[in-house]
């Protein structure tokens, strides 16, 4: 019961903050709603017994990436709003297609869940960080190293792109 209450509260918060992110007039407000959204998603991760992911989410997303966004929004401080002209009927047909896609997706999930009730797999053990670390450093060692190289490349690339002259 408590799980259900927590889930519905988190889900409502996540979806309403997401709507706020994509509808806010000012980009700064969007970034702030994005922080709140990420924190709620971290709460959901804790509910799903992924405590390590929750900590990573708070530290990397809410602490790092969002600060990057905030810096760029502040640097790109526009006098005039970026969205001066939007044709009202421009994306109507596309919106119809997308909403049909949502409907089909939800229907597929619902019928799948109805036809095959979720069997219970082996429960996750309590030592979440130990398990994730063991998987990262044994079975997924090569992807892990590739990811570190990717981050290095991204860092160098970002510096090269953002610097005025080298």
């Amino acid at each position, binding site marked *: 019961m408590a799980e259900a209450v927590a889930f519905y509260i988190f889900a409502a918060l996540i979806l309403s903050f997401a709507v706020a992110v994509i509808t806010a007039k000012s980009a700064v407000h969007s970034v702030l709603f994005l922080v709140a959204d990420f924190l709620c998603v971290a709460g959901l991760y804790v509910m799903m017994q992924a405590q390590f*992911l929750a900590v990573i989410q708070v530290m990397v997303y809410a602490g790092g990436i969002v600060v990057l966004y905030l810096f760029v929004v502040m640097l790109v401080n526009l006098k005039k709003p970026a969205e001066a002209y939007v044709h009202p009927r421009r994306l109507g047909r596309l919106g119809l297609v997308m909403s049909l896609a949502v409907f089909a997706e939800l229907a597929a999930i619902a019928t799948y869940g109805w036809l095959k009730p979720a069997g219970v797999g082996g429960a996750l053990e309590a030592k979440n960080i130990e398990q994730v670390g063991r998987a990262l450093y044994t079975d997924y060692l090569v992807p892990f190293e590739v990811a570190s190289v990717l981050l290095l490349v991204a860092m160098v690339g970002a510096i090269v792109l953002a610097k005025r002259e080298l």
Partner: protein
Amino acid sequence: MITQTHYLVLSAALFMLGIVGVLTRRNIIIIFMSMELMLNAVNINLIAFSQQLGNVVGQVFAVFVICVAAAEAAVGLGIILAFYRNKETVNIDEMNLMRW
């Protein structure tokens, strides 16, 4: 009782909100934020399956998704800054340098 279906529906809804943001907004920074929302939806999906199957591999993939998202944000925002320095705009309707 919260089943996996609940998480999947939440994830689908969050993903679609991200797509709506990408399609309807003209400010490229907000489009990037909508992409972050979509990546979060993917992570929720991965972790829901990880929990249901009792397998920690889904969480490992979520770590990789977060890593790629960080790299994408850094490079993308660098590109936005470089573009803004040249053209003084973040409106994607005016970003047509590579249009033939």
